[in-house]
């Protein structure tokens, strides 16, 4: 401990009633220049930050649900770590959204007080994972996609997004390698692990095509956002390497349709999303004035 008495570490001079550490600094972008670059639409930039931030927040929540359920302690720790990194990326991106749209809303507002239709994550992130193979397949697909996007996002005309992406690339490399190595072990493992991994990929795959569909917001943010259609080849190449080493084939299944033309990026989600948000948001909504 840095202090003999934990209470001594309280540095928030403005509110003596607070007792938990860290309460004085809830802005993860504190001190970062968050000016919206010239020529960039702030609302579009905020929407784009919510897309990437909600992917991370919702996947992080799904990963957290694996705490105490992983097959081995080491995997328990790994899944929690990946969830923590995703939560960190989400915090930066949601905070960036509140600066970009000029509302100055904090990360908690976006995480806890938006309705389901306001979340912009792809539907794969919210999907429930029925077994470990589905978890690993989901993490492989989403981190492979996200790593390819973040590599390009390092060149974004928004310096804040570029900096978040540059940090994220280093983290995502570890996440993707973890999932890839598990897919190889499971696919090239026993008859049962192979069959369950085949089934998991079949379950996940209908939601993969959605990742590469260019949204109007991404189209308008040329030079700021990454066009996800551009990363399809790189994604296919990585998946081909992993699946080949795992003695698996890319699934041949149809993409899941949207609802009235809308998908996750439009705020149209699957049934699982409502239950996920109920769990994620219930405490904050029951105690809206609480600080922690």
């Amino acid at each position, binding site marked *: *401990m*840095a*202090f*003999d008495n934990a209470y*001594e*570490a*309280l*540095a*928030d001079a403005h509110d003596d009633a607070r007792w938990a*550490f*860290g309460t*004085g*600094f809830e802005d*993860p*972008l*504190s*001190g*970062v220049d968050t000016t919206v670059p010239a020529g960039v639409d702030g609302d579009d930039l905020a929407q784009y930050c919510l897309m990437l931030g909600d992917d991370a927040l919702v996947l992080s929540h799904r990963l957290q649900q694996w705490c105490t359920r992983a097959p081995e302690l*080491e*995997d328990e*720790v*790994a899944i*929690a*770590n*990946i969830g*923590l*990194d*995703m*939560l*960190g*990326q989400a915090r*930066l991106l949601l905070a960036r959204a509140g600066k970009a749209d000029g509302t100055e809303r904090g990360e908690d507002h976006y995480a806890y007080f938006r309705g389901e239709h306001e979340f912009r994550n792809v539907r794969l992130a919210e999907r429930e994972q029925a077994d470990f193979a589905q978890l690993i397949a989901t993490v492989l697909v989403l981190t*492979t996609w996200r*790593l*390819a996007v973040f*590599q390009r996002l390092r060149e974004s005309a928004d310096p*804040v997004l*570029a*900096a*978040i992406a*540059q*940090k*994220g*690339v*280093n*983290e995502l*490399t*570890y996440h*993707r*390698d*973890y999932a*890839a*190595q598990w897919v*190889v072990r499971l696919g090239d493992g026993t008859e049962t692990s192979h069959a369950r991994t085949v089934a998991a990929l079949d379950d996940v795959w209908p939601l993969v095509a959605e990742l590469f569909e260019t949204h109007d917001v991404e189209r308008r943010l040329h030079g700021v956002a990454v066009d996800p259609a551009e990363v399809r080849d*790189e994604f296919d*190449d*990585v998946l081909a*390497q*992993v699946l080949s*080493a795992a003695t698996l084939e890319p699934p041949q299944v149809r993409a899941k349709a949207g609802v009235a033309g809308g998908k996750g990026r439009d705020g149209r989600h699957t049934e699982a999303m409502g239950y996920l948000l109920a769990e994620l948001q219930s405490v904050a909504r029951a105690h809206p004035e609480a600080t922690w």
Partner: protein
Amino acid sequence: MVTARTDEITGAGVSTGATVPTGTSVTARQVAETVTDPELPMLTLADLGVLREVTETADGVTVSITPTYSGCPAMDTMRDDLVHALHEAGFGEVEVRTVLHPPWSTDWITERGRRRLAEAGIAPPGAAPRRGSGPVPVQLFPPQRRVSCPHCGAADTEPVSEFGPTACKALRRCPACSEPFEHVKEI
């Protein structure tokens, strides 16, 4: 408890894990450099390489720090500890800023920091991977790294998990002495 500045005067009423130098000539940087990492208390923030800049003005002090990992929960504690230590040392307004770019790398851990990690039984990181602008190659099998055992010094140890008790550490085991240990993984 490890002291960061064995050559300095003791005292100052703050137990930051390192000794805060006293006297009128003490600079804000000297104080900030004594604050330790909450999860790796054998390292000061300067040893860890997260302390980017300390600027004194007529109005107060501005300290810039950088997160190790995006989700590192120790950031808030580091900020609190910096403000607390600087207030205790008599500095008025203290602002702690976050710097995201360039991203933190384990290459920024100082030589002294690496020695302290090893003394505490934590294997220090090797050189961080150098990445170009092209796609990052996928690792289909656990990477082969030469990490020597911080307990018995054996040259070759085996990976247990690339993820450990904190975001910045991996788990390894030594076949020679059978002891498990943590390794600050390269990033």
